[in-house]
């Protein structure tokens, strides 16, 4: 059997994984392994998982995605799932599944912004601490 792989792309400080094929159980587990190893190899700060091409997500696949998120967090990368289809979101909620281990964003662009914002917030916080005066103090 040919081994299939989902490509993992490094984009600046993030890993980008776009799932464009039907995710069967074996492929899902392989992906989970690959991503965890790739985070260690690249030292990525974030993981963006694009699921916009997935049209059915059952509890098993949802669980694998949650596990991928958990693994990523432990390895120091922030997991963000982007492009979840509305019907899937409704189905998951109705089943009682949650995406508790990952952050979510509407689409890839929003996902990248989320990662950038996180970086900027960090910078701003540092700036604020360094500022000697507040607005009120000036008066």
């Amino acid at each position, binding site marked *: 059997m040919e081994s299939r792989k989902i490509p993992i792309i490094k984009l600046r400080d993030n890993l980008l994984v776009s799932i464009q094929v039907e995710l069967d159980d074996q492929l899902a587990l392989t992906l989970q392994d690959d991503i965890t190893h790739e985070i260690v190899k690249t030292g990525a700060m974030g993981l963006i998982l694009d699921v916009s091409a997935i049209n*059915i997500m059952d*509890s098993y696949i949802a669980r694998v995605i949650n596990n991928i998120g958990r693994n990523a967090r432990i390895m120091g990368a922030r997991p963000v799932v982007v492009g979840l289809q*509305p019907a899937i979101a409704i189905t998951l909620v109705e089943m009682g599944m949650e995406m508790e281990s990952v952050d979510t964003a509407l689409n890839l662009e929003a996902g990248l912004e989320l990662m950038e914002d996180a970086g900027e917030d960090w910078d701003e916080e540092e700036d604020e601490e360094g500022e000697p005066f507040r607005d009120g103090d000036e008066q």
Partner: protein
Amino acid sequence: MNSGPNPWKPSDELRHMLKRTSITPNELSSAVFECFEYLLGKPGFSQVIIKQQYKKAGVSLETPTKEGLRKVIDNLEKHSTTFQSQECIQLSKSRLVQFVNHCKEQDLSAMVDINTEADIVTSRNAGLEIAKAMGFSGTDCNKIATAISELARNIVRYAGKGVVVINEARNGSTKGIEIVAKDWGPGIENLDDILNGDYQSKDGMGMGIVGSKRLMDSLDIETGKTGTTIRSVKYLR
């Protein structure tokens, strides 16, 4: 009695339909009604005659078949000769035949053997197609396919071998989709715990059955030492 030589013209709605590569038997049926309501004259009266012919040909009004509709058309054609000129009928019929030629019967049932993980994908995709063809909303189609996926996965994981059968379901005038997941495995021991949501499997969350039950309208389980049969139905709203 001849009300002029003007043959029937399909409405804009029907004409628009013809631009598609195929139409459903239900859509063909509405073309039949439109055509013969015109040919037979008075709307109320012609409706009665058309419905009589459906009954005579053994064609259901809700779920007509292409072949059945052919019969209906032939019979109605004979009836129309009392009201319209032969020329008018022939011209009208040739327009209706266009619709017949475009009609494609959709198979609203599927049986998928479940042995490997790949079969899970096959079965849920079959369910998705059937649910779509039956007119379920996008969200409901997703719920149905997800439920099939859960049940098929349980077969692969716990029984090893089984079958998923998808069919049309009926409750009075309400149509729906029925999923039957059958396996010849060892049966479900702790069924009550699973249904109460108390059970958690080692590697998962024991969500398959409970999850499916939440997504569908009903889910019944028969289980014993020689196998398990789960029947689940969701109706069109």
